[in-house]
């Protein structure tokens, strides 16, 4: 009688019951709701706590549900996926929160006037004023630091990868590692004692730039070294076998092949030193007026400006601090975008 149903009742070998695609979303919502419920009952008020409990419930819930319906192997896979998602959120939430706070507080302050005026003659409790002098100082100091540190760092990395053998190379590597660990305030104190106290120069943007260069150099060396190591040895040999001298092989083949990565590394180092406050505080001193000469007299810089305005503590100065913080973030971000553009433009092409 049952000749119409050909489909056998046996379970197929390769396909098994699967959770629908929206299942993770449902589990996520359910665990969030559950965690809020638990927290309200227990009287916990911290939203961070809610989130962490929800994350935990989400991982456990995914495992339990998947193990029940799909099987243990799939459940383990799902747990790994959930953990990746949870970690991603844990990393992104503070970032977004930081960006949001800065933008919402700073956007109302930053305008053409703010970017084009200094604090000259502006009282702490006055509205108005701007970051022009600090932005100018930051650009000049970072530029000088980069001009000092990038070539030295690049050449050191070339030495370590292409020439360095034996004791000297090991010593250089060791000191580069030590330099990576120098706290910025120590770099500032070093330049302060050497340049200002012993040699007798005065506070200047250049003094700050030297401390920034000390901080930048090891980062450039390390990243450039890694990038140069990635260049296949076959390319060096191909060039040498054409009768090209070693130095030309390095400048014309090895460095161009790695230039994208090197640029990114230098830009990350620039981003790192742009936000440094301590050495600038010691060496550049801070100033309310525009000083375009980095070799003479006190300057300001964006992080120092933020620190000082926030320290004053009036409503207007705190607004200005947020505005400067936003300017700083935007400045670093624009630099990074430019660097990425250069890296993409210069990267080895593979297209057919």
């Amino acid at each position, binding site marked *: 009688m049952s000749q119409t149903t050909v489909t056998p009742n046996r379970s197929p070998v390769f396909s098994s019951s699967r959770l629908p695609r929206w299942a993770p979303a449902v589990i996520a919502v359910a665990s969030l709701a559950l965690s809020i419920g638990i927290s309200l009952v227990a009287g916990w008020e911290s939203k961070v706590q809610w989130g962490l409990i929800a994350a935990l419930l989400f991982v456990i819930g995914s495992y339990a549900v998947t193990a029940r319906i799909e099987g243990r192997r799939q459940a383990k896979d799902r747990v790994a996926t959930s953990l990746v998602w949870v970690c991603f959120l844990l990393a992104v939430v503070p970032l977004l929160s930081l960006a949001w706070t800065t933008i919402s507080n700073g956007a109302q302050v930053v305008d053409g006037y703010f970017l084009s005026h200094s604090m000259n003659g502006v009282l702490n409790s006055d509205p108005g004023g701007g970051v022009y002098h600090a932005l100018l100082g930051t650009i000049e100091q970072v530029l000088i630091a980069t001009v000092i540190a990038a070539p030295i760092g690049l050449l050191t990395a070339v030495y370590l990868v292409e020439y360095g053998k034996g004791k000297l190379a090991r010593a250089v590597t060791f000191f580069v590692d030590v330099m990576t660990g120098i706290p910025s305030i120590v770099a500032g104190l070093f330049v302060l004692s050497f340049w200002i106290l012993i040699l007798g120069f005065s506070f200047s943007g250049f003094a700050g730039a030297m401390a920034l260069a000390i901080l930048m150099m090891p980062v450039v060396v390390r990243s450039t070294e890694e990038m140069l190591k990635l260049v296949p040895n076959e*390319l060096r040999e191909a060039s040498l076998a054409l009768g090209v001298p070693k130095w030309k092989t390095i400048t014309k083949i090895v460095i161009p092949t790695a230039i994208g990565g090197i640029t990114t590394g230098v830009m990350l180092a620039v981003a790192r030193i742009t936000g440094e406050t301590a050495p600038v505080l010691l060496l550049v001193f801070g100033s309310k007026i525009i000083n375009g000469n980095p070799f003479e007299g006190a300057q300001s810089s964006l992080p120092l400006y933020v620190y000082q305005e926030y320290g004053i503590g009036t409503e207007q100065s705190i607004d200005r601090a947020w505005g400067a913080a936003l300017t700083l973030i935007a400045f670093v971000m624009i630099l990074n975008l430019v660097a990425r553009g250069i890296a993409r433009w210069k990267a*080895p092409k593979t297209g057919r």
Partner: protein
Amino acid sequence: MAKRIDVSGLTAYYSTFKAIEDISMTVEPRSVTAFIGPSGCGKSTFLRTLNRMHEVTPGGRVEGKVMLDDENLYGSGVDPVTVRREVGMVFQRPNPFPTMSIFDNVAAGLRLNGSYKKSELNDVVEKSLRGANLWDEVKDRLNRPGSGLSGGQQQRLCIARAIAVEPKVLLMDEPCSALDPISTLAIEDLIGELKEHFTIVIVTHNMQQAARVSDRTAFFNLAAVGQPGKLIEIDDTERIFSNPSVQATEDYISGRFG
């Protein structure tokens, strides 16, 4: 244009490890000489001593004499860079420069050596690409990156790059081992044409290939792992493959090895 290579008593080391010992042979100009032998017997090492690429490897060291016509490559005061301009090399895996276009890859040797006139460059590139049987395939896309070509085309591009600097000798280290039979055929035909102008030395694991392309064949072997490789015999290819004078050669060629 092509030159004779005369090797006598050549021993090469990697730091303290002796890779090849006491090799002497003559490579005739305008001929193809093939090196065969089991892996690790020092064929490639020996090949790299012929243009002083061996010493590029950290710890690489050479004793003995390599005469190119009447000049010792290992004589005092010889600049390895000028040696490599005379003795070009093609590697096992195609390695075009990834930052350069097809044109720039071929022109690289001349440009980087700084000795060219701009007007000559176009001619040299076309001549080299024609010489490498690649011109017709790439003439419409000389400005595209070299790494966009197929493996066989890339290898011919590398050959074009090597012959663009007009070396006297061309060393090839298993140039077809990463290629399919059709590309291999293209390269083998090319070797046949190139030997009109160059002295060619080729390392190969493919015995049929050695029999097809070479005029003379050298068989290398090593007594045991960790022992240095040695030249067992070198003779006309026909003789090596039909009636070798050493039993080990015959065993290796007929597959009765070990």
